[in-house]
């Protein structure tokens, strides 16, 4: 039997706001496994922080259940839950020294001062911040404060560590190195991490699984690869990375999970069907990542210019280059398809392919059908 550290069962959280009831979390159900690095990803106001606060016990759900290690948390106050939080602004106690901050949680447990001091020292060493115990939080840099906040939470040896945009206040470079460190730390301590972020790149590089949230709803839960390569909704495809959306009409569904989509110019292409797509849906968007698109220049009339041969599982369309942008490793092309559809493609700047395509040039664009997903419009 799989062991779940945290289970959310049909959680709803409503807030009173100016006389109206606002649903911050809307029927969220998810099970998070023991030792998992789980990211809650979404734009600000999507309900991810509220979800975290519901697990921590700072908020009570309007309906639904929070289970931690199989135990229902209803009526259990935050200070009796086996979870600890790293707050967005760290919330280090400004009147206490770094060491006293880290010892705070142990003192609340009744650990005697000597043992607490020893464990606090070990925790500070674990986050690679020894020798600052005597200092006050405001005497440390943002990155150091972040480590203290981590040590303060980890020293309690919680079942689950909740992190609310812990790297949000750090500059880009520090954030990158902290991402690796956090990930390594999580492997080291083996504690379940639930990590709230609005940074999709952060979620993709760090998490074992990601839940994408929007307007209180958990739209999709999956591994970073699944989320990136198989987005099930327009929002997810749009929020994570860059995506092309080609509007079309769904003509029919094939038995293999693919559908036939008629584009504006009448061309019919095949694409994977999103699971989230309603049965009655007819207007769809075909989502395809820019780096999954290949471009072949139309060769001289003798046909030696490249492979045009249509393959069964490849879509090939005519297009015109409308612009290009050199961005170092890649070149980013904008292309016009028939029927006013626009497309962005990214080609890697390899040694062989350095000759840029010219604006106005007629080309063929192609992609594997499995790279395209038909989802809600």
């Amino acid at each position: 039997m799989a062991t779940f550290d945290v289970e959310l069962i049909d959680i709803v959280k409503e807030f009173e706001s100016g006389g109206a009831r606002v649903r911050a979390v809307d029927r969220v159900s998810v099970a998070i496994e023991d030792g998992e690095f789980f990211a809650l990803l979404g734009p600000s106001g999507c309900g991810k922080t509220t979800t975290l606060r519901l697990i921590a016990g700072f908020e009570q759900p309007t309906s639904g259940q929070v289970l931690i290690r199989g135990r229902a948390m209803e009526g259990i106050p935050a200070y009796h839950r086996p979870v600890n939080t790293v707050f967005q602004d760290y919330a280090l106690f400004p009147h206490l020294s770094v060491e006293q901050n880290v010892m705070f949680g142990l003192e609340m447990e009744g650990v005697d001062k000597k043992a607490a001091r020893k464990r606090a020292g070990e925790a500070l060493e674990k986050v690679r911040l020894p020798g600052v115990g005597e200092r006050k939080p405001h005497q440390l840099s943002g990155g150091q404060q972040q480590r203290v906040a981590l040590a303060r939470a980890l020293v309690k040896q919680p079942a689950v560590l909740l992190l609310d945009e812990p790297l949000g206040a750090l500059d880009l470079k520090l954030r990158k190195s902290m991402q690796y460190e956090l990930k390594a730390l999580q492997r080291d301590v083996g504690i379940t991490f639930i990590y709230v972020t609005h940074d999709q790149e952060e979620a993709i590089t760090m998490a074992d699984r990601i839940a994408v949230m929007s307007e209180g709803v958990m739209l999709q839960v999956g591994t970073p690869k699944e989320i990136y390569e198989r987005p099930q909704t327009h929002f997810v495809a749009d929020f994570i990375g860059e995506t092309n959306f080609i509007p079309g009409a769904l003509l029919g569904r094939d038995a293999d999970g693919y559908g036939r989509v008629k584009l504006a110019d009448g061309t019919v292409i095949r694409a994977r069907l999103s699971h989230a797509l309603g049965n009655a849906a007819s207007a769809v968007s075909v989502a395809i990542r820019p780096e999954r698109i290949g471009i072949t220049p139309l060769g001289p009339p003798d046909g030696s210019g490249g492979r045009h041969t249509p393959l069964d599982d490849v879509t090939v369309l005519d297009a015109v280059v409308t612009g290009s942008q050199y961005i170092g490793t890649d070149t980013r092309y904008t292309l016009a398809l028939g029927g006013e559809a626009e497309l962005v493609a990214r080609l890697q700047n390899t040694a062989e392919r350095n000759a840029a395509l010219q604006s106005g040039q007629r080309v063929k664009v192609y992609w594997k059908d499995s790279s395209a997903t038909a989802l809600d419009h």
Partner: protein
Amino acid sequence: MDRQFSLDMKTRWGHMKKSGALLALPTIAWLFIFFVLPLLIVLVVSFLSRGRGGVALLPFTLQHYERTFDVFFIILRRSISLAGLTTVICLLVGYPLAFFISTRRRRLVQQITLFLVILPFWTNFLIRTYAWRILLGEQGTINGLLLSVGVIDEPLTMLNTQFAVLVGLVYGFLPFMVLPIYASVERFNFRYVDAAYDLGANDARAFLRVILPLTMPGVLAGCALVFIPSVGAFVTPDLLGGTRGLMIGNLINKQFGGSGNMPLGSALSIVMMAVVMLSLLVYVFANRRERGA
């Protein structure tokens, strides 16, 4: 900050300092003539002998200080303990009130409750204190009410007691406790309470270990603002305390009247000021420790 830049700032501020001193000169002169000088005169007078009609005469003597700590010591002690008790009661009543006000979610509720705290200031202090005479008197409102309900058989003696003075002082100075604590709690980041809960602190511990220490500046300021004027109060004990509730302020007041004793009054004033200064020192040190901590 860049070193060169900070040096530049220093020279710029140096010029500002000069013109600043010039601007402050009138005020400094005013304070010197009407505050420092009179204070020095009071200090000198307190060591002089009493002449006919209570005026000060040579030779120098320590007798007024001796009397202050001898005959009048009981009144000095009463003043300090009444002021201390006033401060403690104001704190116990004022902290929850200030906490309640600053944690209201609705701005309007906050503003109304704050307004109610400040409202008494709109009426003259003397009139408000007289009102307490009517409330606390033998045939006063409170006695009348209690008698008619039958809780008591004969009127309670409340007026002209230390109790009445205490009631008057707490009533008068409560806003001075509430306002600075309100400001402190208003600035307090409740994320720290979340953090305390998160680390296993229950309500009481979160309050004692996190909220109270972080709102201590307001508490200390409130205590200073209540204690200092309470020690020297004379209107309240004069109207509500009678002879049993006499405080050092009343004693000083009398010495400068017709049959008074100016040197004695001066000595009493100096001692009272010393008490206030000492309590201020306690405030400053406590505050510094809070800030360093």
